[in-house]
């Protein structure tokens, strides 16, 4: 099966967890999709290689950016009509607190889905969802229909 067919198959079967397994970088990072209480969440399981500041210790900011960008893409694959992997146009990450060496979660909200562009915002947190450690917003290129030829 092609990637697009594998994604469609995961949607038909209601198995969003399979989306992250298709992406080599997400497997390497320990980024996965969880379907909890009817919502899709991104999870970055802690490992020592995610550390960006060994003295604190704190997660590398780039890893939280990666979790939030991945979570946005999973949400788009799940909710938006797109026949391609959404392409990131731009993403802005605000770092609110340093990430501690524990698991990190993210939730993406589709603020607006246009015909070609989706606007997404994402929050990331660790133990306490009410205290986000980073927020992001970005634009993603989607393709609702197969282009002939």
């Amino acid at each position, binding site marked *: 099966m092609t990637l697009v067919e594998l994604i469609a198959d995961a949607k038909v079967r209601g198995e969003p967890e399979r989306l992250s397994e298709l992406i080599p970088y997400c497997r390497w990072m320990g980024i996965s999709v969880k379907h909890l209480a009817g919502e899709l969440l991104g999870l970055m399981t802690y490992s020592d290689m*995610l*550390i960006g500041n060994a*003295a604190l210790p704190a997660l590398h900011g780039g890893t939280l950016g*990666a979790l939030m960008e991945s979570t946005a893409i999973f949400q788009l694959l799940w909710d938006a009509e797109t026949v391609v992997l959404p392409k990131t146009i731009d993403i802005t990450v605000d770092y609110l607190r340093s990430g501690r060496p524990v698991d990190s979660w993210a939730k993406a909200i589709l603020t607006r889905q246009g015909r070609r562009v989706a606007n997404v915002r994402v929050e990331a947190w660790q133990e306490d969802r009410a205290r986000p450690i980073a927020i992001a917003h970005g634009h993603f290129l989607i393709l609702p229909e197969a282009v002939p030829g």
Partner: protein
Amino acid sequence: MPPRTRAEEVALLAQLNRHFHGVVPHNQALGLAMIALEDGEARVRLPYSLDLVGNPETGVLHGGPISTLMDACCGAAVFMKLPSPVPIATLDLRIDYLRPATARQDVLAHAVCFRLTRNVAFVRGVAYHADSGEDDPIASAAGAFMLATHASKARP
């Protein structure tokens, strides 16, 4: 700062790369390497790896490692602007993906810290491939970094 000889620059790069890896395990995991430094400027290489692929059909890298490369390179540029090293923390970082990266090619980043205030450093950067050069970048970045972060000072 007086101009460095090539030998001094190589020695400084080796020293900084040991720090870059020893203190920052994720830079080491990605294989990031500082390849050039000037006052307020840094260049960092991200080696292509199949582990970092975002689209398994094309082999193109995921945005995550590009973001991390830009964050690391922008941070290094801030260090090269500081009169003396202090802990820094990324306040925000915006990445624009200008065109797809080419599969199986390393990505290089060049960042410039163009403004340093008492509390904040402002940085711009680009990511590019060696063959097309930084005038035809694959991504650009703009970020702000907080200087002498309290959380860092409070701990050993």
